[in-house]
């Protein structure tokens, strides 16, 4: 049943996804680049990745598509074939320090993150062996004990977007930075 909307979604988000991701990947691999330009490329890619991921989360939370979401160490991890990277969303970081959330997300998806995982439509439960293939982003750099500071998202588990617990749903639905955190989701895509 969710297949048609997922197909539509892929068309929408892959316009960024594959072409630009490839371009920037090739660009970043070329030698002797000026530092300023590397920064521009990384920032642009990070923002675009974040935006694409947020759009998917928004659609998922509205039940417009069927996405595998995982709660992992207090973060929402989204893996979908329509994004050429893994999108990790740190609920606790964003709600407390909105300014830094962009950088966190950017760093979490290195180009090498186009590992086998991002091709799989569904992320299998992460075993210690599988975690060897995960990008060394902030999500996996150090183990985090699920504490209250991790956003009370509960233990590591798969989340079913159609039946998200309210406190998780509210954290996924990012409020705009200029609005109070208690603000309920609005219908437009989130401005970056």
């Amino acid at each position, binding site marked *: 049943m969710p297949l048609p909307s997922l197909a539509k979604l892929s068309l929408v988000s892959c*316009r*960024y996804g594959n*072409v*630009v991701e490839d*371009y*920037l990947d*090739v*660009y970043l691999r*070329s*030698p*002797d*680049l000026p530092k300023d*330009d590397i920064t*521009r*490329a990384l920032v*642009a890619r990070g*923002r*675009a990745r974040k*935006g694409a991921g947020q759009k998917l989360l928004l659609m998922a939370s509205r039940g417009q598509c069927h996405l595998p979401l995982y709660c992992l160490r207090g973060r929402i991890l989204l893996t979908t074939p329509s994004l050429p990277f893994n999108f990790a969303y740190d609920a606790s970081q964003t709600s407390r320090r909105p300014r830094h959330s962009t950088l966190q997300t950017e760093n979490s998806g290195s180009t090498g993150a186009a590992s086998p995982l991002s091709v799989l439509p569904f992320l299998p439960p992460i075993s210690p062996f599988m975690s060897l293939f995960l990008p060394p982003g902030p999500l996996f750099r150090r183990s985090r004990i699920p504490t209250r500071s991790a956003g009370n998202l509960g233990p590591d588990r798969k989340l079913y977007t159609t039946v998200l617990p309210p406190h998780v749903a509210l954290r996924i639905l990012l409020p705009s930075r200029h609005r109070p955190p208690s603000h309920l989701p609005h219908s437009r895509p989130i401005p*970056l």
Partner: protein
Amino acid sequence: MSPIPDELTATVISAVESLSALQKAKFLLEHSLALLEAGQ
């Protein structure tokens, strides 16, 4: 093989080929940034 490109495409390709590596990279970056701008 790919079909024979039209004149404009061929000219653009040869123009891009004549660029230095750094200029090519720069072109790629600018083009990606433009695509991102247009997409969002």
